[in-house]
């Protein structure tokens, strides 16, 4: 486990993100290092493929990677501002703003386990840019154990096991903490 993992790994995503359950595409945080990036996992549920011919939508693949990035953004801002996540929620919304390039390689269906790996390329003025890859994990692969021993060098070298199949890549994803006042959501 990396030294920064305890900032988020082991916490429930509902502690970090404000999405309602049907819109939440993070089950667990597996690895986090502020200067590098974040790894999350999500298993595709029945509700995710219902009314979409049993296929997980590409836009939800993007969302899964976006939520991984927003989670990292939340933790970094808590650190920087010296505030708790609950305090930050009263001041900011972490908003996904854009992505430069999306590539999809395969489809996912109910039960598939998806790992989002977000590589943070910058974090300035509450705006994060990251490159993300979404992988499908082979059945029975112990990804939790794998990421317990994952190093910063592994992350930087983009080391992943052969049990991971790339599903999509998203370049230059941008998210930012925006004040509720500016979003005109101060009463929410």
């Amino acid at each position, binding site marked *: 486990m990396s030294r920064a993992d305890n900032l988020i790994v082991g916490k429930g995503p509902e502690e970090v993100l404000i999405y309602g359950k049907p819109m939440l595409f993070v089950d667990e945080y597996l690895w986090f290092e502020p200067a590098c990036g974040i790894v999350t996992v999500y298993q595709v549920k029945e509700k995710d493929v219902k009314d979409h011919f049993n296929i997980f939508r590409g836009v939800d693949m993007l969302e899964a990677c976006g939520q991984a990035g927003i989670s990292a953004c939340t933790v970094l801002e808590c650190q920087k501002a010296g505030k708790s996540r609950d305090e930050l929620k009263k001041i900011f919304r972490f908003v996904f*703003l*854009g992505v430069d390039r999306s590539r999809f390689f395969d489809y996912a269906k109910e039960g598939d386990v998806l790992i989002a790996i977000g590589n943070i390329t910058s974090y*300035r*003025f*509450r705006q994060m840019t990251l490159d993300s890859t979404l992988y499908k994990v082979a059945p029975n692969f112990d990804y939790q154990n794998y990421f317990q021993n994952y190093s910063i060098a592994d992350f930087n070298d983009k080391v992943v096991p052969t049990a991971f199949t790339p599903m999509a890549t998203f370049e230059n994803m941008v998210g*930012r903490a925006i004040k509720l006042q500016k979003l005109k959501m101060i009463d929410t």
Partner: protein
Amino acid sequence: MTREEVLKGIVEILESVRMVDKEALATINEDSDFITDLGLPSTELINIIAKAEDRFDLEFDDDDVDDLDSKVSDTIDLVLKTVNQA
């Protein structure tokens, strides 16, 4: 530092930004808007502000950047405010 000097510095920054509308850049003034006049995405504003920190050797406050609007005059105001606070 004068407003004209800051504007000149901003133009220098924008000349290195690939996405900027070069024709609009030729007629930039304080009332120009980075997004609607110069064709930049809102996500690029933070990169320009970061470059302005380096260009003017300043450190902007996050809260000031949060409140920043997208007109060139807003960035000039931010630079001069930060200079005066230093």
